[in-house]
């Protein structure tokens, strides 16, 4: 039982995508299975770019975009099936997901016809990659604390400032940026949502070395960087609303696919525990079962939030899901280390070649910080869904 209502034809659709992935990932792209997941975003970039183009050619990008001129407007069930099969096949981490899942829905909701025509085909063909310029070094979780400024100078915006935690900035062609376009404006007012080409002298990308010793995120410096005057989405000054609607797109159909990836991670750890004797420790075995139990609960919660009446039944879905999966994944990293036992302290080799378990353990710490920290999720739940007062500033 998949748990989400399927229509006639969905089974055939599942077979189609499964067969296609099996063919591709046994052929030209056989080396890409398992590549590029969290903590491995730096791997095999050229091959993964080629993979994006292959996805685009085959029509697998934009399957959920509601406008049939650009995407395929498939049903929710079929989108879920795609993500499930993609995860099941261990197909590579997507280089194009920011364009496909964040930028495109934003343009479809707020962009001009000209913007849609200009930008969506490149995203859909897997040829143009986007990155996201939201967070700033001084802001932390406070997204409205935007210091990056953009000044209209004739037919172009001139952008100055700094963004941080920008995934994939070094491989992206374009960046969407929230910048302050009204001088002296504060907080949510006076912001605009701008589109900038990355390949220009005013933009410098500096990778952030993480606790793993690898780089997944970047700092992006804007020093007189330029966007065309027309490359503002929505209206100038209306950027906060555009940016926030985008955050809403981040959740949703990919959740069940993500959970298949989680299940694979847990299976690997469980298998390892059986082999190395950790599972003979009844207290560790109890923890392994707990992890499995909590994963089932996350799946049931995801199914509920994809139901027909979910908007009424589970308006808190995004916040609850984020808290659940981030905490679960972080605990999984701790469990992976416990299963390794004393071997958990030893890496695979010099200079600093981490084991899979160590990479999971370290990298999963970011899960509860980025994309809305645990603290932000709890604030939102308390204030918006429980009706408790806001903290007094």
């Amino acid at each position, binding site marked *: *039982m998949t748990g989400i*209502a399927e229509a006639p034809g969905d089974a055939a659709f599942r077979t189609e995508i499964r067969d296609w992935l099996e063919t591709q990932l046994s052929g030209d792209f056989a080396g890409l299975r398992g590549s590029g997941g969290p903590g491995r975003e730096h791997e095999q970039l050229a091959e993964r770019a080629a993979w994006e183009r292959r996805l685009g050619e085959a029509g697998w990008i934009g399957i959920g975009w509601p406008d049939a001129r650009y995407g395929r407007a498939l049903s929710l069930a079929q989108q879920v099936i795609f993500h499930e099969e993609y995860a099941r096949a261990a197909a590579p981490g997507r280089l194009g997901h920011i364009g496909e899942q964040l930028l495109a829905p934003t343009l479809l909701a707020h962009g001009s016809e000209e913007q849609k025509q200009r930008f969506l085909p490149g995203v859909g063909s897997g040829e143009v990659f986007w990155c996201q310029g939201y967070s700033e070094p001084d802001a932390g979780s406070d997204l409205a604390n935007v210091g990056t400024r953009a000044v209209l100078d004739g037919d172009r915006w001139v952008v100055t400032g700094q963004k941080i935690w920008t995934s994939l900035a070094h491989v992206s062609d374009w960046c969407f940026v929230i910048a302050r376009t009204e001088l002296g404006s504060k907080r949510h007012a006076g912001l605009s949502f701008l589109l900038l080409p990355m390949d220009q002298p005013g933009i410098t990308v500096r990778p952030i070395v993480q606790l793993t010793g690898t780089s997944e995120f970047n700092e992006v410096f804007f020093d007189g960087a330029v966007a065309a005057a027309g490359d503002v989405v929505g209206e100038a000054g209306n950027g906060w609303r555009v940016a926030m609607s985008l955050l809403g797109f981040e959740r949703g159909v990919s959740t069940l696919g993500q959970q298949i990836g989680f299940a694979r991670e847990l299976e690997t750890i469980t298998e390892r525990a059986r082999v190395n004797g950790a599972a003979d420790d009844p207290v560790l075995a109890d923890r392994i*079962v707990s992890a*499995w139990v909590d994963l089932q609960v996350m799946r049931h919660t995801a199914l509920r939030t994809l*139901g027909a009446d979910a908007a009424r039944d*589970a308006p808190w879905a995004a916040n*609850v899901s984020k808290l659940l999966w981030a905490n679960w994944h972080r605990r999984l990293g701790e469990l992976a280390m416990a299963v390794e036992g004393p071997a958990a302290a030893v890496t695979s080799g010099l200079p600093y070649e981490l084991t899979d378990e160590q990479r999971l353990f370290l990298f999963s710490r970011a899960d509860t910080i980025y994309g809305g920290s645990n603290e932000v999720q709890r604030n939102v739940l308390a204030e918006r869904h429980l009706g408790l007062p806001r903290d007094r500033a």
Partner: protein
Amino acid sequence: MDLSLSEEQRDLRDAVRSMLAKAAGSEAVRAAMAAPSGRDDALWRQLTGELGLTGLAVPEELGGAGATFAEVAVVLEEVGAALLAAPYTSTVVVAEVLARFGDAAFLPALVDGAVGALALAEPGDRSWPPRIGCAAARGAEGWLLTGSKAAVPDGGAADVLLVAAVDDRDDALFAVAGDAPGLARVDVPLMDQTRRAADLALDGVPAVRVGGADAAAFARDVAAVAAACEAVGTGRRALERTVDHLRTRVQFGRVLGSFQALRHRAADLFTAVEAAASTARYAAGVVATAPEELPVVAPLAKLVCAQALSDVAAEALQLHGGIAITWEHDAHLWFKRAAHVQHTGGSPEQLRRLLAPAAGL
């Protein structure tokens, strides 16, 4: 299976909720706790014969409403929220088992106010699943049961008891009439006074065989799912009441809810309750549509929902402060209910061990 509540299910929920708000508020619960029967008989007649809530998932031709256990689950959450002191949960579990396995003889009565009870655990046994020592023997006119059962929920008032016993081959499930000869029942006093239970002594009690080990397992699993749904309702209500307290109680010159440490704890509890609710709802759906998943999903749901309720009930006491320690406040009722659910029907450790093979261990 769509796990978001449909409009019809929301209507059902709202109707039951408003009815129980009127008829089964805190004072009514306390009156029922003090009554020897542990229930308000008029309310029980209203819930059963009048509204047909015990027959929701019973086929229409047997007097029921022909819905599914998913709708029963909606009612169970409200029953749990109200801490309804009545044998609703036991009765719908028995009805579901009989609708699936039994001959239909008992069902019309159960729809119409008769009480059902499921007798699994035996004295002195702390294992789970329980070891069945009760023996079923073929007599001249049918099966006869001999043995004893411990703290059977609603066992004292039950008109129909489903009793797990060992027949000549394996565990099996038998139906026994409440007034059957050879059956002795002794009420057992519970810490959770909104519940009733009885020890059973069976001495050659005539019984009807409902099914084999699969029926006994199905009954155990449906009872676990029902307990899970009820626990979700109690937990959600305890959290709502706690949040109300945080919104209104003033200390140090401000409402408690303006303290972020308390808000964050409430948010974590909300997450736990709604996640557990999703699992309970999935499990209720499985009863109707995919019973082959029950051996995994039922203990899973009981485990998760009992834990969520325990967490909420403990924090409800702490967040209410001193008032919650008094008899007058409902917080101790939630807390005792939580302990009851947690420690009966398998401990968390036992349930996880039961799930180990499913988890790949």
